């Protein structure tokens, strides 16, 4: 990494700059390592103005102005923060089992984690993306990609629960995903790793010949339901990030790529050789035409679509076997490559839709393509060459501007509503503010440390709320009290409402937040559900009142139809269960009051508790292993008599003839 960076920089005739930088690093290092004695920590936060505390202070009982949704990275979850306070509001389990909520452990949510590889209880969640209408965040859904076993999840923002997970076939790492189109017509999924297509047992060295890179368009229906509309077969570059066009550029999606060298080993060197990699511009409206004309290949595939029904309180998993594939050679005008210097990472489209920023992470300058120029170049056939049926546009024809030497290691850019752009620089650990159109650098501010993504609420939409900016950092080091070798990643909140960016707050996050999304709280608050109406509960094993509770044996399978209400289970005494039975506790929470969940736990259960929301039914699977009498109890402090919310299940020997018996004790008189 160091070697490449150095060699790269030398080619840029900026020795002076390097010298100054080296000096700065040395001085910075000295101050840093003497921090304990000299109080340099204060110097790092020295930019804090006196009113920073009041700017982020949200008084007890008051609400934050924005929701911030941060990906959990390798935690597989999404965490929801209040902005500007930085208070954690909720952790939403998505791709990972969550024992706290029983997610992925209870029978209802297990199917959400089903894939063509079977049950996969973990993934690496990178990019949350809010649904949009007319290019503006609308507060309906939050999408997020799973990178490892390629998937996209949809979170319903009336419940803040995962509503759907779709698997992406023919992909090797779903990184450039799930960036939405202007009206959430589609969310996209580009493969980060080239993989053999179709997947097969071949020599790795046959990469250039056998490997491909697939871009996937996932159609989003009126109720949010996702389905794969089509895939575009491209050379096996590493498709890194994406953003769809807006305004004039609506109808296009831009995917960055690196490893256009198509190497399969020592990528840190081998994939950093080309002077320019590509941004793939996909005309998805054209793709729709080709699909309508039948110019696709129906190809075998194997992927799961998992949907949670709020009416049955249950997810179902469906396996699909084919997918429509478009091949650029056969579909002229579908894809163009825009040469972009040095392994571009993020690709970000400004609020007007005119500028496409390619954040070349190994480049000294920031490259900005112009959509107008791109269309002109296409019309004039200003092609450098053609790769696998994809015309490569001339760099000089598409470039719209260059931000000259703004910093080191640009990764991502977001926008405010005043024509300014904000770019993160990983290596120089800073956010740089610059002007769209004039390309001049206006301001810069350090991050602590090595910022990756950044987020401005609505910052990748047509209507940014340019008040706050959050830097999502990769390195934490000394920012907080030490907690052993592993530290939570840090985030910084900046005020960007003035000419100069101001640091307001520093807070730890969960897992590794890659990207984040922010939205005005008012777009969500009024739609937030408080309970599930019990009369709408269509769970097949529901009990909509204590009169409907029962225990039913079918061979060695036992279904317990149970209810909870403050402060008891019905039934709370169960007998006639036998060792080796397969017992399903279907627990319906009869409560209809906001914030009164009940929990359920039984000794020896090899999964996790249930946490049942008012009006919901959840199911725990339990295999009694030993004879005896085992307690079960409510795990969520629900009421003054929560501690009394308990019961017993008696387990007899395998050959016992004890009949099933269940009861809810009448108070003794």
């Amino acid at each position, binding site marked *: 990494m160091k070697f490449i960076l150095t060699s790269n920089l030398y080619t840029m005739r900026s020795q002076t700059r390097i010298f100054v930088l080296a000096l700065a690093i040395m001085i910075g290092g000295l101050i840093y390592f003497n921090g304990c004695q000299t109080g340099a920590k204060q110097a790092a936060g020295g930019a804090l103005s006196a009113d920073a505390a009041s700017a982020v202070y949200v008084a007890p009982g008051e609400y934050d102005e924005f929701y911030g949704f941060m990906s959990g990275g390798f935690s597989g979850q999404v965490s929801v923060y209040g902005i500007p306070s930085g208070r954690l509001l909720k952790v939403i389990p998505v791709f990972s089992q969550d024992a706290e909520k029983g997610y992925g452990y209870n029978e209802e949510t297990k199917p959400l984690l089903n894939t063509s590889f079977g049950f996969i209880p973990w993934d690496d969640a990178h990019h949350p993306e809010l649904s949009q209408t007319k290019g503006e965040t609308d507060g309906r859904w939050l999408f997020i990609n799973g990178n490892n076993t390629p998937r996209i999840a949809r979170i319903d923002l009336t419940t803040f629960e995962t509503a759907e997970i779709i698997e992406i076939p023919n992909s090797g790492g779903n990184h450039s995903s799930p960036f939405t189109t202007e009206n959430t017509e589609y969310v996209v999924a580009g493969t980060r790793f080239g993989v053999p297509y179709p997947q097969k047992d071949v020599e790795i060295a046959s990469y250039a010949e056998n490997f491909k890179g697939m871009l996937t368009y996932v159609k989003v229906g009126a109720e949010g339901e996702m389905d794969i509309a089509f895939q575009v077969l491209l050379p096996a570059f590493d498709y890194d990030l994406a953003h769809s066009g807006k305004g004039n550029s609506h109808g296009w999606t831009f995917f960055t790529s690196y490893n256009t060298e198509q190497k399969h080993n020592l990528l840190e060197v081998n994939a950093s050789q080309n002077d320019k990699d590509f941004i793939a511009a996909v005309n998805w409206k054209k793709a729709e035409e080709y699909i309508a004309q039948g110019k696709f290949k129906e190809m075998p595939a194997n992927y799961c679509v998992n949907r949670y029904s709020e009416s049955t309180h249950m997810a179902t998993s469906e396996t699909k076997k084919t997918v429509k594939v478009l091949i650029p050679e056969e579909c002229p005008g579908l894809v163009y490559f825009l040469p972009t210097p040095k392994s571009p990472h993020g690709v970000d489209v400004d609020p007007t839709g005119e500028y496409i920023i390619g954040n070349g992470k190994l480049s000294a300058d920031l490259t900005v393509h112009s959509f107008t120029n791109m269309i002109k170049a296409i019309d004039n056939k200003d092609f450098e060459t053609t790769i696998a049926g994809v015309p490569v546009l001339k760099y000089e024809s598409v470039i719209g501007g260059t931000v000259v030497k703004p910093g080191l290691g640009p990764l991502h850019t977001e926008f405010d509503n005043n024509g300014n752009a904000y770019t993160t620089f990983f290596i120089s650990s800073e956010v740089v503010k610059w002007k769209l159109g004039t390309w001049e650098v206006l301001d810069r501010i350090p991050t602590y440390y090595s910022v990756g993504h950044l987020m401005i609420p609505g910052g990748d939409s047509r209507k940014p709320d340019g008040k706050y900016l959050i830097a999502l950092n990769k390195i934490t080091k000394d920012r907080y009290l030490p907690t052993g070798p592993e530290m939570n990643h840090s985030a910084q909140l900046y005020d960007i409402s003035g000419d100069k960016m101001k640091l307001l707050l520093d807070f730890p996050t969960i897992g590794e937040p890659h990207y984040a999304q922010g939205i005005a709280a008012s777009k969500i608050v009024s739609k937030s559900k408080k309970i599930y109406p019990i009369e709408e509960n269509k769970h097949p094993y529901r009990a909509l009142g204590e009169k409907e509770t029962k225990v039913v044996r079918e061979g060695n399978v036992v279904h317990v139809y149970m209810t909870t209400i*403050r402060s008891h289970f019905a039934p709370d005494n169960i007998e006639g269960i036998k060792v080796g039975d397969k017992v399903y506790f279907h627990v319906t929470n009869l*409560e*209809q*009051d906001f914030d009164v969940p009940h929990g359920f736990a039984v000794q020896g259960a090899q999964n996790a508790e249930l946490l049942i929301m*008012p009006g919901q039914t959840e199911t725990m699977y339990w295999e009694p292993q030993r004879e005896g009498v085992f307690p079960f109890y409510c795990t969520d402090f629900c*009421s*003054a008599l929560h501690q009394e919310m308990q019961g017993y299940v008696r387990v007899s020997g395998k050959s016992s003839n004890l009949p099933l018996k269940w009861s809810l004790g009448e108070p003794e*008189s």
Partner: protein
Amino acid sequence: MNKLAKPVMVLASILLVSLFFLPMWNITLLAPQYPDGVEMHIYINKIGGSSPGTLQNVNILNHYIGMKKIEPDSIPELKYMPSIIVFFIVFGLLTAVLNKKWLFATWFIAFTLVLCIGLYDFYLWEYDYGHSLDANAPMKFDDESFQPPLIGRKVILNFVAISMPHIGGYLVALSLSLSAVAFWLSTKNTKIIAS
């Protein structure tokens, strides 16, 4: 006789139709854990609330201290009150049509009486709920009455209970006042107005 007596009496009668879809009385329970309050709405034919779950939520709260479950099916008033209201609507319209002074007076007095009995009956129910407590209740408080106020506010354990007419109740009051006005108008000589 004043021409206005008729339409005023018709209005007084028609106002009572609102009781079939607007609550008459409201009991609000306030506690820190219930920032929005628990609002129980009493109609002439049912008991509702600020949310579909209100009655269940009130019953859950009440069961800790052994108060009886409020079960609309076992409250006979909710069955026959609608007939009484229908009676007064028809009676009122008839009064307007027949336009007799004594009929206006009778309607006003009869309705006042019914309302007084209704309020007393409501008090008896509240007394019963507040005093006949289950001896096996999880929480027992000696010498405490959990009777909600007939009208006004009262502290009951951790709750503040506020009992006030709801919109239907105010419309009833308006209806009664209008019937009084109608009666007053019916005693006036048209000539006085005309001259």
